[in-house]
């Protein structure tokens, strides 16, 4: 029994961290620009593919490959933001939904064209392939690394948002875009940088998580729901909200997969619906 609980806690934490890394960028950009970006998971998929490409074709080791993938996706997201997304800030929710559904379709087809339909994962470096023992149990080293990375990133983001000038401008713009503009904050630059950062983080999550969320063309549509759940339950424009929501979702999802694999996912969805009806603005969202 203890063993099962420990397994759930460990693997749940690992999956929660990947969810958090993927989703946190969307929470920030949605809170900042009010843009319903359904294509956010496509950036995670792109990050996964880019890192896989860097290891297989360029022969890069694991860490540089992931970093290259993140950088490529963040860079590629800048023209997308400038030429597509920025034109629809303040447009109707429907227009934003339609544009980003279109992007999902396009991204899915492109992924299939270049990488084929089969699911793929990043090859782990030998250092991270083994097992680590905790007491009598052993767990994959790689997932320890993911959990550590997730907590470290959460800390870094918190520092960045709470303790830097950029973070202060970001918070100001989330609170009130117009006032932020009127005190001289270049919000359009801010939006672009935040969007690129969020896309880069999604790419990082996609690449790191490919071990248990294999990258395939359907990824952009399939992972969309988990990403949106984390954002909606966490609440917009907060850093801790998505962290909490990712923990809840990761742990409960892992728990039902262990304990009730038959109908588990169904009950997760049901719980999410109840939770959202109870707190429509999310657990920590501002109403």
């Amino acid at each position: 029994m203890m063993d099962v609980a420990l397994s759930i806690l460990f693997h749940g934490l690992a999956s929660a961290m990947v969810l958090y890394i993927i989703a946190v960028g969307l929470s920030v950009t949605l809170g900042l620009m009010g843009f319903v970006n359904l294509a956010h998971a496509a950036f995670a998929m792109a990050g996964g593919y880019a890192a896989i490409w860097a290891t297989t074709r360029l022969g890069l080791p694991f860490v540089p490959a992931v970093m290259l993938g993140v950088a490529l996706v963040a860079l590629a997201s800048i023209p997308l933001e400038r030429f597509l997304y920025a034109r629809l800030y303040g447009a109707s929710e429907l227009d934003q939904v339609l544009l980003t559904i279109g992007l999902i379709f396009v991204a899915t087809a492109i992924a299939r064209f270049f990488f084929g339909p089969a699911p793929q994962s990043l090859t782990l470096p030998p250092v991270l392939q083994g097992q680590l023992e905790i007491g009598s149990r052993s767990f994959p080293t790689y997932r320890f690394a993911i959990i550590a990375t997730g907590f470290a990133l959460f800390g870094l983001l918190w520092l960045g948002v709470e303790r830097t000038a950029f973070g202060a401008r970001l918070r100001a713009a989330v609170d009130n875009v117009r006032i932020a503009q009127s005190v001289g904050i270049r919000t359009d630059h801010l939006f672009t940088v935040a969007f690129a950062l969020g896309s880069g983080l999604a790419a990082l999550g996609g690449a790191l998580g490919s071990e248990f969320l294999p990258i395939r063309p359907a990824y952009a549509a399939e992972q969309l729901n988990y990403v949106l759940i984390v954002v909606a339950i966490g609440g917009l424009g907060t850093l801790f909200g998505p962290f909490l929501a990712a923990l809840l979702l990761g742990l409960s999802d892992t728990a039902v997969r262990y304990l009730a694999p038959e109908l588990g996912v169904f009950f997760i969805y049901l719980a999410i619906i109840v939770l959202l009806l109870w707190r429509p603005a999310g657990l920590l969202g501002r109403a």
Partner: protein
Amino acid sequence: MSTAPLEEAVRAAAHRHRVRPLEALPWLAALAAYWFASDYLALGAQVLVMTLFALSLDLLLGFAGIVTLGHAVFFGIGAYAAGILAVRASGDPLLGLAFATAVSGAAGLLSGAVILRARGLTFLMLTLTILLMVAEAANKLAFLTGGADGLQGVSVDPVLGAYRFDLFGRTAYLYSLAVVFAGFLVVRTLIHAPFGRSLVGLRENAGRMEALGAPVRRRQVAAYAIAAALAGAAGAVNAQTTQFVALNVFSFELSGAVLTMLILGGAGRLYRAFVGAPLYMIAQDWLARLDPTYWFFWIGALLIVVVMFARGGVLGLASTLLSRGRERATP
């Protein structure tokens, strides 16, 4: 004298309700297709099913102003309801249609009453989550739905006991056409009735409607349930004419596809389904034949282009050209 504007408004509303000659066009085209495109009747029936599905979404999106990512759930519920009834109890198509419409309408009423209190992202999330939840349930209830293999052995009796579903799809086409026409009459009547006008009011300014004393939530739930029932009817016809139901009726892609159809149709509410759905289905058929794996790229690209550059869609383009022509004619 003070009643004059009111009278004028009433006359305008009555005028709007009058049947215009142009409205016969889609139906004439559909009948013409039956005679002249008899090799494509199977595709034709699919086009008609999607037209009804898109029309049901138009009631939500175009009139009530409700954006949903999960409209496919009602199409799927209708398809499974009709399919399961045919497998288990009765193959009568009209009974199946009525049953499926009722079941999906009830599902719409129930879910609408629960989730329509939410707004924005939360509402979008809820519609998507319900879609995934129902898909998961349909996958797991394999004894009833056939699970991942799909629902097989859907055999449908002749329509009204007389018209057998033939190999060439003639009956299927005309049956679909009749159901779409009935659905169109329902929607057309509704939107010109006070109910439909109040939906437009909700779309334009829900706060003011509330201040006027309109039961906002109840109207929205009613529209949601009616749209769900019509989507279920479309799903039922799809199950009956293809005699098969697969889990992909509960897919995000189908929800996205039906949104795309409406947007392609463009600005003309009520009629855009009749432009967008055929356009989408024919484009899909053509693109998939050119390239069976990557046609979604073009659908996505089309969607992006329409949203960014041609917000009025095909009908918007047509009416711009028409009014330009008129301006030139009357200087």
